[in-house]
């Protein structure tokens, strides 16, 4: 199978590309960011998905499957630009796929789609609507991209669409929302709150996406592995020190004195859990994680010692 990985400049996307290559597929990458040391057998096209040159890649390469990993979150890009990348990019990928004979598109979204609120169910299932955007409007374009991708399930019945809602990842790349949050030695918490966090080892996450590309499972799927763990446990087991602070104080310190520059609404995500039920994905693909939650945390501690 010929697979085009869009957003291949990202750390997780590179792992997906390598794993798909190792599983015997022909892999092409596309990103406006460079992948300097990409393997020779993975052709990388350094173009913006929203530009004409990107469509040429679809036209000339004729991939069977497209893995869309080119969305960005509020930590990576701001305001209008983020919305343009997430919505414009997602639309372009699906349009090119429909126009150039792609059989299967895998949209890799995030489990934060569901939002973090005090009174939502602990284990989210795929049929639930997103919540909490009122308090965290920076999530809106990612949610919209997810819903746009899900629309393709009925708008383009000849195209197999897989929408994945992937939990946080942890691994040596030190990229991703949770890894960014754990970057320093001291990690802020909201005093009196200790939400459950769910994460996958990077290699497991890449394998889940690769398996989704191979199995052509049509539909929307939460992707998770080990059971969730309280944030305080994650901080402790990765060798960091938790610094609990009253919410108003923490809100005032965001982006100052070495504290992470999170949007104000992101505080909801360190007060309340976002945990997903991934049983449908397991049933559809047979995916089982290899690295448990404790081992993933200890590996991360060894790889990312903060002294």
């Amino acid at each position, binding site marked *: 199978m010929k697979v085009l990985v869009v957003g291949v400049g990202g750390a997780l996307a590179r792992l997906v590309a390598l794993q798909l290559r190792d599983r015997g597929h022909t892999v092409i990458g596309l990103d406006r960011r460079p992948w300097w040391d990409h393997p020779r057998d993975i052709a990388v096209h350094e173009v913006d998905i929203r530009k004409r040159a990107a469509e040429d890649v679809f036209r000339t390469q004729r991939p069977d499957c497209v893995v869309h990993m080119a969305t960005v979150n509020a930590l990576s890009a701001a305001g209008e630009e983020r919305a343009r990348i997430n919505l414009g990019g997602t639309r372009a990928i699906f349009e090119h796929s429909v126009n150039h004979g792609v059989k299967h598109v895998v949209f890799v979204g995030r489990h934060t789609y569901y939002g973090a609120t*005090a*009174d939502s*169910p*602990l*284990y989210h299932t795929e049929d639930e609507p997103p919540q909490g955007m009122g308090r965290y409007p920076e999530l809106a374009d990612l949610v919209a991209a997810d819903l746009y991708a899900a629309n393709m399930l009925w708008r383009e019945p000849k195209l197999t669409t897989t929408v994945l809602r992937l939990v946080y990842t942890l691994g040596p790349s030190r990229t991703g929302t949770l890894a960014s949050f754990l970057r320093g030695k001291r990690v802020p918490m*909201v*005093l*009196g*709150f*200790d*939400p*459950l966090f769910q994460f996958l080892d990077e290699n497991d996450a890449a394998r889940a996406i690769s398996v989704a590309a191979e199995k052509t499972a049509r539909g929307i799927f939460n992707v998770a592995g080990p*059971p*969730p*763990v*309280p944030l305080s*446990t994650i901080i402790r*087991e990765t060798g960091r020190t938790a610094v609990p602070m009253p*919410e108003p104080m923490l809100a005032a310190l965001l982006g100052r004195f070495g504290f992470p520059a999170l949007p104000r609404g992101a505080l909801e995500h360190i*007060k*309340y*859990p976002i945990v997903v039920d991934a049983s449908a994905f397991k049933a559809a693909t047979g995916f089982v994680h290899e690295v*448990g*939650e*404790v081992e993933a945390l200890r590996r991360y501690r060894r790889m990312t010692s903060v002294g």
Partner: protein
Amino acid sequence: MAKDDSIRSLVDRLELPFNELGIDPYGISKKHLVVFFTALAFLYRNYFRVKAVGAHHVPGRGRAMLVGNHSGGYAIDGAMVIASMLLELDPPRLAQGMAEKFINRLPVSSTWASRCGQLTGLPEHAERLLEDDRLLMVFPEGARGTAKLYKERYSLVDFGTGFVRLALKTKTPIIPLGFVGGADAVPTVYNSKTLGRLIGVPYVPFTPYGIAAPLPARCEVHYGAPMVFEGTGDEEDVVIKGYVEQVKQRIASLIEEAKSARGGAL
């Protein structure tokens, strides 16, 4: 009764899928349970001197739904039922209640409710816990039950019907329970909803002596034989209400038994 066992060993004997850090998939933490049950066991044994009758009706394993009455200005009944499931059963079990929504919004209580398995009262949580063969604790009177005044302490307010539909859908036995003594511990004479709104709770109870600090009244809980209803949970309201009425009557008779057996509050 496993009175001689330490709380820690009882928590160790809970048949829950804890990982090597002592945390289960719902975020229940052994470390927090030990602290929680140490406090509850003191209240259960020494302060409220709770007597539990018929705990053997609760199955040792598998899904079951404890359904009871509220007694007192806040959920002393729920806390003591949770304690009795750990202290009186062999093997011990963790009863998981459906907490009021405000609990998860407040700092500290949010964390402790989660670490001790007391999830927000949502139908999704109740169904998932039963599908996982857990022991669910339900008070169908809801907050209206804890808001009963002292003079109404042995009455039952209207029951919701969701618990019976859920029991039918998940094929779960209902274990009725009658609890008395909570109203003697917290003899509510007035509930201030205005003050409650200010601090984010449904109401604040007041007693003849002012604040609602609990008095050391003796409490008694009587568990009844399992009630099993046949159906799918999609039955007409009239059918469901009939089952609800059966459970309510059984709880009323258990309250009467507990009231007679307990004698005075002191």
